[in-house]
């Protein structure tokens, strides 16, 4: 009987959902269309056009795509971005996870620490970039070099900056995951004689796979889309050696007369790359998710 009622209520709910779906979805859909969908379609069309601003485009077919890999600068930016993303995804997630473990162990002042670690996330990327540029250049002055002396300084500078900014946010997600692990599971593991290491790798981590999925997704896409921090910290220097994809697209679009379409074509290629990577990553981490 109870099951029957539940089922009926569910049906009623579904009916109501169907009835009001359009009404509730409409505002969101309108915003989505204006802010995302329409610009994206326009952008795709513009990548096949020659234009100086969006009002005077003329169709030229695939011409723009021929210049995407000109001088190899897009390829360089791609490799730099890939290297940066790999390093930052690994480091951010490991640090964030370790902090989350520490801060779910009833350490005194846990909430204060959580707040402090989360704070850098509230500061804008450009501001952070400038602040870290001053800090890092001040430190490097001791060795009579600067952030743009060698690409490696810029690279590690960006990694430090991104870690500092993102660790707090990911930590909160991990904490939420850790708190939700049923106590019985851990206790059962203890009773079965599992040591801390085994508990961590065979109970805790599998239980928070959804958190890992979301954190690695966020850090991966953040890494690939990084722009403000790159612009403020090194602006690609020395030369274009620390220029990441988004900055390269921006510089192509705005920095070179007659290259607006090429910038747009690069943006389309960029979108495809990020989409493929993000979907692949989601697919693989989702597979590892388990039901507690």
């Amino acid at each position, binding site marked *: 009987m109870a099951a029957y009622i539940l089922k009926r209520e569910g049906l009623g709910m579904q009916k109501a959902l169907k009835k009001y779906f359009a009404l509730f979805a409409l505002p969101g859909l*309108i915003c989505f269309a204006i802010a995302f969908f329409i610009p994206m379609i326009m952008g795709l069309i513009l990548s096949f056009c020659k234009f100086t*601003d*969006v009002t*005077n485009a003329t169709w030229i077919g695939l011409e723009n795509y021929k210049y995407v890999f000109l001088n190899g600068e897009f390829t360089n930016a791609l490799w730099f971005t890939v290297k940066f993303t790999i390093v930052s995804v690994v480091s951010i997630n490991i640090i964030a996870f370790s902090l989350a473990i520490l801060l779910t162990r009833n350490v005194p002042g846990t909430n204060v620490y959580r707040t402090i670690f989360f704070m850098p996330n509230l500061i804008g990327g450009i501001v952070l970039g400038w602040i870290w540029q001053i800090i890092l250049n001040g430190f490097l002055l001791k060795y*009579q070099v600067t952030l*743009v*002396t060698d690409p490696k300084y810029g690279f590690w500078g960006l990694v430090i900056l991104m870690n500092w900014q993102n660790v707090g946010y990911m930590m909160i997600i991990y904490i939420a995951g850790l708190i939700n692990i049923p106590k019985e599971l851990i206790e059962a593991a203890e009773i079965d004689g599992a040591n801390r290491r085994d508990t961590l790798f065979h109970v805790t981590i599998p239980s928070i796979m959804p958190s890992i999925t979301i954190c690695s997704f966020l850090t991966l896409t953040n890494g690939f889309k990084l722009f403000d921090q790159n612009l403020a910290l090194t602006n690609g220097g020395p*030369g274009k050696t620390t220029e990441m994809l988004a900055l390269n697209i921006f510089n192509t679009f705005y920095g*070179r007369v007659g290259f607006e379409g090429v910038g747009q074509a690069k943006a389309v290629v960029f979108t495809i790359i990020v989409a493929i990577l993000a979907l692949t990553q989601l697919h693989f981490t989702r597979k590892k998710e388990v039901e507690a």
Partner: protein
Amino acid sequence: MKKSLVLLTTLLVLGASLFANGTSESKATDEVYFLNFKPEVADIYTEEVAPAFEKETGIKLKVVTAASGQYASTLKSEMAKSNPPAVFQTNGPIGLAADKDNAMPLTDTKFYSILGDKSMALQIDGQPAAIPYAVEGYGIIYNAAIMQKYFDLASKKVNVSSMEEINNFATLKAVVEDMQANKDALGIKGVFASTSMSAGNDWRWQTHLVDVPLWAEFKEMSGYNSIVEAGLAASTSDFKYNQNFKALFDLYLNNSTIAPTLIGSKSVDDSMAEFALGQCAMVQNGNWGAGQILGVTGNKVSPDDIKFIPLYMGLDGEESQGLCVGTENYLCINNNLSDAAKANADEFLYWLFASDTGKKLVQEKLGFITPFNTFTEAEMPSDPLAKDVVKWMNKDGVSSVPWAFAAIPSQEFKNNFGADLLQYAQGQMTWATVVKNYQNNWASEYKLAHNN
């Protein structure tokens, strides 16, 4: 529950409609929108020029200033808006070619009528479309007080005792190196201000310093009316006088306030501040930098002590070489506006350069050396560097170096060249590679510019 959902929905719809409306800005026909290129005088436009103009003509002036190095991109995005700039700047023939659809023919405007030498205007299809408003000059700015201190120094090893004797590279080099050796006695950190190379701050080298070798190279091409015309026709450039460029650039790097490895973190502002605070004796820059010297808090340089010498780099006959004088500042009126808006824009430019109030502001606050026939000799700017530029322009036996860099095929070329110079300064690239990259870049950028 239902009520709050309805409320939420209404709010969302409202929000969406607000967002949709956000892009259309209020249009005022009695307003002139000026997109300013010069950040160093941005405040003067908004705080003094705009109120004075509105008071005298009743027309509002909206001034937006693009960040340093961001003018082209700012202009591009502003032009696409529903309320685009009425008056905008272009930097020369190459910049104008990119904006040819937006610049209106100025033949019948009041602004064009006051231009002294009509040949200075840039043309599109035989019609004037861009008018220069400020002639500028640059060279090496020196602090006469510190130089005098050196000339009076007992321990000096070079037999030079006045700035007039420094009229070639060899003398300059000898004096600079001896000064660097005596920097503690002179109370300076180095002879030259830091060779600033941080992002967007390398134009003093990749555009200005390279002007002299470009001029020397284009001068040898025959059959052209002007240096820039010759340069624009050059599909390749050998950088023939690269050793001269290198000689002066090395002198800057090796006799500076900081080590060459640190220049990547320095901005032009830093360099000018070093000069203003008396930490160095020389800095390469132009007359627009006067404000950056005299306006710095704690400034230790007296206006009478700021003077120019030309960019000597060992070219033949350089004793008669003057400052690099030219203009990169042309104004255009937006062709896509209504006739009334165009007339207002013309009115503003005429007012600024022909009315008494406008001229006074130009002379005393903006400090432009203008090419307009409305300015008398006595109305030339009063800042010491502008005065010195005028002095050099009229000096006997010396002729100014034109701004040949207007012929550089693209901004991309300058950026790449600047990046190579930084790598060279930091010891990561040989000079031969810098020269080779210069040649390849010129050829490929010329080709791209002429394909598109």
